[in-house]
């Protein structure tokens, strides 16, 4: 594993093709949270997002031989994730929990049948500030609600660019669409989001 830490994505893929499980685990370790965050923002449910993220890496493992290194590994993973999200949406697995309902977050308390005094999530937080956490939870919920109101194509672009931090060109590569299309969708997505998140924006 120590050796894998210093290897490039390309080298790790070559090792994975030779059934090197350590290399596969290293890839998962590098990208699991990025992919999960993207998928979670797309589908709005932590449970569905985790299942879909698992599926992303299973598909990656199965389709390793078809990866041609024409794009980066992260681009390929985002592309797989995006396709799976579209498939999930088409299968109509949307739940209330992701859009307008309770949203689970590692940073927030668990809302159980015991009410708001239920057991806290077992996450160490050395800067425990209830008001701050609640504000973050509320903001996170508002962001998720605002994203859910966007058309899927616009939502994808704003998540990849503004939340995941991909450049315009990378987003175009993931979505396999022209750069102008990415910019146009982002323009429209931000215009819509400003209306929903106005109160949470400074100035």
């Amino acid at each position, binding site marked *: 594993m120590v050796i894998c830490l210093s290897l490039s994505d*390309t*080298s790790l893929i*070559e090792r994975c*093709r*030779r*059934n090197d*499980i350590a290399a*596969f*685990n290293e890839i*998962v*370790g590098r990208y*699991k*949270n990025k992919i*999960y*965050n993207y998928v*979670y*923002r797309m589908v709005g449910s*932590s449970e569905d*997002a*985790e299942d879909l*993220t*698992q599926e992303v*890496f*299973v598909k990656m*493992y*199965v389709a*390793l*031989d078809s990866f041609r290194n024409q794009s980066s590994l992260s681009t390929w993973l985002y592309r797989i994730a995006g396709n799976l999200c579209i498939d999930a949406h088409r299968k109509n697995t949307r739940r209330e929990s992701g859009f307008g309902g309770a949203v689970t*977050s*590692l*940073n927030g308390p668990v809302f159980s049948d015991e009410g708001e005094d239920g057991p806290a999530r077992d996450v160490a937080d050395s800067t425990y500030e209830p008001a701050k956490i609640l504000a*973050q939870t509320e*903001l*996170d919920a508002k*962001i998720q609600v605002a994203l859910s109101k966007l058309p899927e194509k616009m939502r994808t672009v*704003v998540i990849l660019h*503004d*939340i995941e*931090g991909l450049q*315009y060109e990378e987003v175009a590569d993931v979505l396999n669409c022209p750069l102008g299309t990415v*910019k146009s969708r*982002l*323009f429209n997505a*931000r215009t819509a*989001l*400003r209306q929903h*998140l106005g109160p*949470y*924006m*400074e*100035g």
Partner: protein
Amino acid sequence: MNFEWLNQQKRQAECQLFAAKLNEYVDGDLDRDLAWRIQNHIAVCSSCEEQVASLRSLVRVLNNAPRQEVSSEFASILEARIAGLPKKVPAEAPITQDHAHWLTRINVPMRLTGSFAAAAVFLFGVVFLTKGPSNPPTPTIPPVQIHSANISDLVDQHRAQSAGDPLSDASAQLLASSVDTIKVDPTKNHHLSDDDAAMMLGGGM
């Protein structure tokens, strides 16, 4: 000339022109010239200035959105799923840049060894072909030594035995006739060829 009116018209035209570019301006994705022009326009246009400020605030909120993470069981569940998949046949590892260097270093002595081996085989083959196969020694058949005295005795003996039947033994007659034709030096051991011996002894029959 109402310069104020002209300036107002100019700003409105720029507002329309730059509206679609404000996103890229906020993201720093414009060339310097256009970014400079927008910056100058923002300085005199409160509407666009407000648009830019609003965009920057939105981007800041999204950039700082709480990051979601997988559960602690994620890795173990995934590992179990992967273990349950059918094993792949490892593809032949392509030579990467990391390997090419080492292969170059290893391959040179291998090439030399191979060259020497090929040269040795070649030389051996040349030597083998020029020298010719060493035939296994054939048993030396000592030449037949027929003493003239023995031949005469044999003929006489045969004639005596077949006196009553001079024509029954054609070979004898042939032998008898050949004795006269073959000049034999009784003082020497003579090596008869197979043809001569056959002729004498009726070997043709």
